[in-house]
Structure formats: structure tokens, C-alpha cells
């Protein structure tokens, strides 16, 4: 697999590390809504098809990216920086 890092360009999979589902929203840090936290930590849609996921270009620029990838074909349609850092 080749992931096109928005900074470094296309790079081999081996340079990246996976960080899982990027569609989850972390509850407000102060929230004590246990269900929301449980859902965030444990529950996954795990789709067969389009998936948005975090990867870190750990063997390159070290930035995290959000990759849109099809889990049936592994075809990648979009890669962008995660978050918008200041």
C-alpha cells in the first residue's frame, strides 16, 4: 500500500503506523457520560467499504493524517492532515 502523505508525498506503508477509526468524536474531557466514553473507547462501526482512519507518518514527517480507504479493496481516495494545528 502506498499512502500519499500531504507533506512527504507517496510513501510506502512501512513508514506509517495505524491509529484506527477517525470518525469517533472524543467526548468533552470533563464529561462524565460513561456511555459516551465507552462508545468512544470500545465501539466501532468497522465498515466493509469506506473507512476513515488515522495513520501517523511515523517513519517520515511524523504527522498524523486521516486516510479515506476502502477496506474491501484497500484503495485510498483521500489523505489529509489530521486536525488543524496552530
Amino acid at each position, binding site marked *: *500500500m502506498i499512502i500519499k502523505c500531504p507533506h512527504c508525498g507517496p510513501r*510506502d*506503508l*512501512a513508514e506509517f503506523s*495505524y491509529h*484506527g*477509526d477517525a470518525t469517533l468524536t472524543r467526548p468533552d474531557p470533563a464529561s462524565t457520560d*460513561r*456511555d459516551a466514553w*465507552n*462508545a468512544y*473507547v*470500545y*465501539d*466501532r*462501526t*468497522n*465498515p*466493509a467499504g469506506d*473507512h476513515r*482512519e488515522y*495513520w501517523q507518518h511515523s517513519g517520515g514527517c511524523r504527522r498524523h493524517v486521516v486516510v479515506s*480507504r476502502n*477496506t*474491501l*479493496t*484497500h484503495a485510498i481516495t483521500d489523505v489529509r492532515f489530521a486536525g488543524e494545528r496552530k
Partner: protein
Amino acid sequence: MAEYSAFQVFKNGLTGNTGWKQAWRKPEPKQQYDVVIIGGGGHGLATAYYLAVNHGITNVAICEKGWLGSGNIGRNTTIVRSNYLLNGNTPFYEHSMKLWENLSHELNYNVMFSQRGIINLCHTPAQLDDTARRGNSMRLMGVDARMLTPRDLARRVPGLDLSASARFPVLGGLVQPRAGTARHDAVAWGYARAADRRGVDILENCEVTGFLRDGDKVTGVATSRGEIRARKIAVCVAGSTSHMMKLAGIEKLPIESHVLQAFVSEALKPFLDTVVTFGGGHLYISQSDKGGLVFGGDIDGYNSYAQHGNLPVVEEVMSETVALFPAAAKVRLLRSWGGIMDMSMDGTPIITTGPLTGMYLNCGWCYGGFKATPASGWCFAHTIARDEPHELSAAFTLDRFHRGYVIDEKGQGATPWKH
């Protein structure tokens, strides 16, 4: 149908092998069953078999979307062991081991369970202690285990690099002598034939495409071969679990699907008489009766439903193999393939009633469910028949995640790709 035996083989051999019948029937689906099991893998088949044998429930159908055994049962590295660390796991896997030990007789099918032992290698003093801890844990639960010195290893595993200059020097290992390998396909076929003989309908090319509901209750399945009603519906679809449960309206589960690759080398004369696992990375290797070295490593590490893997893992596994067995550099890789793992959030399976009324769920086997096949079927059949968990699988609940009773052998937390 005739029992399989040496005599039958001889007799049929002389008569051109024309006397053999279908190993299992190819029935048309009935409209109604007591239990419909979705998934004709090892667990689904074993569940059907034990429903019939232990609970007398024989009006059962198994819906398999492809050919029987096309899932992970047909593509795993065949290691059977019960060398677990944590309390929640060991008794379950040990029960499985005991069932394995008599399985060929039980099924009247040679599943070729070969108790050639499994050895976990240790490469650092800390690993020796960790491994001893595991061995002790096993012993205290009545499972066989023993630490090995490098000298023991030299005798048991010729070709293993035990020199001080080895890429990963070996300080010792843990052996579970009763562990071993079995012929994966035979397990599927053996359970299928045995279940079929007890009246279970095995419906191949019968993909479940939806659930029939009556309010909150699940009452049947829609399949590519028509609708089938059932009082109870058991889901055993391994890597397809999330997808299947979505059809039932359950959008999220503590499961991710990941691809695991496996490899086989060209056939060789006996090279390795036991199963060896590497402690410095992730590798397990054994030799099939046909002669191929069968090996695997880590999952590729990202959600996948594609049954093919990536190149870095191939390289990783091969480099670990030649690090342990430097002579194997000249051995050649024959074939590689992949299977879809149902990785749970703590690396431990789920066997449970629900999550909907009339439904039963068996999943989360990660890369270790082959060895669990008999016990999984045993306990799941119990759960289905009695509507309550079997004591051996009582810890494998679905709510353990939320409640904080995770069983995390690897200590990795909620990152399925690291288990």
C-alpha cells in the same frame, strides 16, 4: 453411511473407490428450523454438532455463503494450544484441548491432530520470567507446561540458531507438549460430516442477507436461497461479524476486522518436528504433513475485509524465520494468503446471548480461534440451548468492555490491531 476405517479404505480401494458417498448432503433449505447458524466455519459447524450431540437439537441449519470452510477455518496456521496466561482464558482453551485429543474418534474423521508440542522462545531474561509466569499459570490450572533450556532446544529443534551471535540469541523457551497442529480443512469437513449425519442441514452457497424480525425479536434470516425461519439464530461469521450485525441493526461492536497473512514454503522432508514461536517479534512456524513450512506473524494492522495482505509483513515474517533458522534462507516461499480476523478490543472472544432477542453471538476470535473450535462449539451450543452462558465461557461477555472486565493477554488496551 459406512464408518470411515482402514477396512473401508482397503475395500473401496479394491473396487475403484466407487463406494464412497458424499461427505455431507447438499439439501434444499427447509422453511423452518429450531436453530439457524450463520457461518459454515469451524465454530458454526462445531456448534451444530454439539447442539445435536449434547443437547439433542437436530433441527438445525447452517447457512454458509460460499463453499464450506472458505473462511478462516480453511486458511489458518493450524496451531492448537492452551498456553494462556489469564484466568478467564485458560480453562476454556484447556477444555478445547481435551476435546481435540479425542476429536478424530468422536467425529470418525481423521483431523490429524498431531501433539508435537509448541515452544515459545525467550530472548531476554525478562522474557524468560514472563514466560515462566505463563507456564506456571498453566500448571496451576492443570495444563502441561515446562521451561526448556537452550540445551533442550538444541535437541528438539535442530536448525534453530542457538549461537551467541544469533540475530536474536535464544535463552530458553516454554513448551506445552500436548499442543500441536491439526489439519484445518479436515476439522471443517469432519464436523460437517458428523453434524450432517445427525440431521443438520448444511446449506452452502446460502448467504444471509438480512434478518427477519418480529418487533425486537429475530425470527429468521433472508438468504440468497430464500427466507428461513428459526426460533434461534446463532451468528458465527468471524471476520464478517460487524457486517452481519449491521444487517440486524446493530451499528457498532467492540470488534474490528483485520487481515492476517499466512505462508507456506515448498514441501520439504521433515525439517521441524514441533511448533516454534518467536519471542522477539511475532512469528510462529511449523511443518505440515505434506512438508511445507507453515508460518505466520502479525496481522497487517489496519481494518480490512480484503483477503490479501501487504508486502512489509511478508518481509517481516521471512526475516524472522531466517533469523531463527538461518538454513531456511534457501527454502522458498510457495504461497501466501490472508484471512479476515475479528479482532476484539481486548484480544479475547465473545460468546453471548443477544444482543437481540432470539439471537446469539460468537465472535472476536482474533487469530486464535482455530484451537478454540471444539470448545467454542461446545459452549456456544450450551448458550443457545440453555439461554445462559456456559461456565467456561462466562467471562467472554459483550458487556465486559464497558464494565471494565477486559481480558487482555497482551496488555495493549483498546487497540485491536495491536493484539
